[in-house]
């Protein structure tokens, strides 16, 4: 009777330990990471946001591009790009249509590209980028494209028509 009890007790201990290992294995191997399916947001549509759609930018003048970005999890990086729209192309993320000049060929178009990282595990941030429009670039229609990327890799984009004038 005494030996039988010891045998049962060992089996019981073995079962408990094994069940514990099984549960730990299950939890470790199967930790379902929460999938971030939410894209960040980007907006220039607030009082300090710049430029507004259809804004005129003078050659030789300096401006500060400002946009608010946010994400549910963590912001990672942003980029600002200006390219000419002399061919009247459009982007899917454009919200406002502006009156465009005539289609023309580019001679010395403004090409501006700037990207930066957003450190500090932030969920809200304001892009603040100074730019001076060179005196020598082609006047006409341009797109100013802004994008922000979150830590997962989702990107939000917005672009506005701007016009470079004399």
């Amino acid at each position: 009777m005494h030996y039988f009890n010891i045998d049962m007790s060992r089996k019981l201990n073995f079962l408990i330990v094994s069940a514990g290992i099984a549960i730990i294995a299950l939890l470790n191997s199967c930790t379902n990471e929460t999938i971030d399916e939410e894209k960040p947001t980007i907006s220039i549509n607030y009082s300090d946001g710049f430029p507004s759609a259809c804004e005129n930018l003078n050659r030789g003048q300096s401006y500060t591009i400002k946009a608010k970005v946010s994400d549910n999890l963590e912001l990672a990086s942003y980029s600002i790009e200006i390219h000419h729209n002399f061919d009247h192309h459009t982007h899917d993320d454009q919200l406002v249509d502006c009156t465009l000049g005539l289609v023309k060929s580019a001679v010395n178009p403004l090409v501006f590209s700037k990207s930066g990282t957003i450190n500090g595990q932030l969920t809200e941030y304001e892009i603040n980028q100074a730019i001076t429009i060179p005196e020598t670039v082609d006047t006409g229609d341009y797109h100013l494209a802004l994008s922000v990327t979150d830590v997962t890799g989702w990107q939000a984009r917005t672009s506005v028509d701007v016009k470079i004038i004399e």
Partner: protein
Amino acid sequence: MKTNYSKIVLALLVTIFIFSCSEEDILPPEISNFEVGGTHHDEDHEDEDHEEGVGHPGEELHIGAEIIAYSKITSITIDIHSDEITPASGEVVWEDELVYTDQKYLVLNAELHEDIMVPANAALGEYHVILTVTDEEGNSTTEEEHFDLRKKIMMNN
């Protein structure tokens, strides 16, 4: 009947390891709205100079696409070549391989937008554009389009 507990538990453990968490394969990137030439959804401004599928020597050629990846994009490659064209004297068959690893493209959802300068001495004819998107998992997706390089017709008003 003697129950072999150790065998049962071992079988249970093995089963958990095998079936509980088999990782799903990550799908390759998806390319849509791949366009060469044209003015990208510009339905309001009809313009023969920027007809889709047409380019002109000495001018920029618009290439655009929307890309969804299931693992971050690591590169986008645009390969331009022709199999059919025999260049005349002073002309070249335009061949280019452009690899883009710009920060703005290393994401899950990218909008490809590139304006590529066509050499002024490029021979006229049909060209192919092969777009390849590769992700962090090493998956890649390729789409092919073609365009005609034509002499620009000057309009006299």
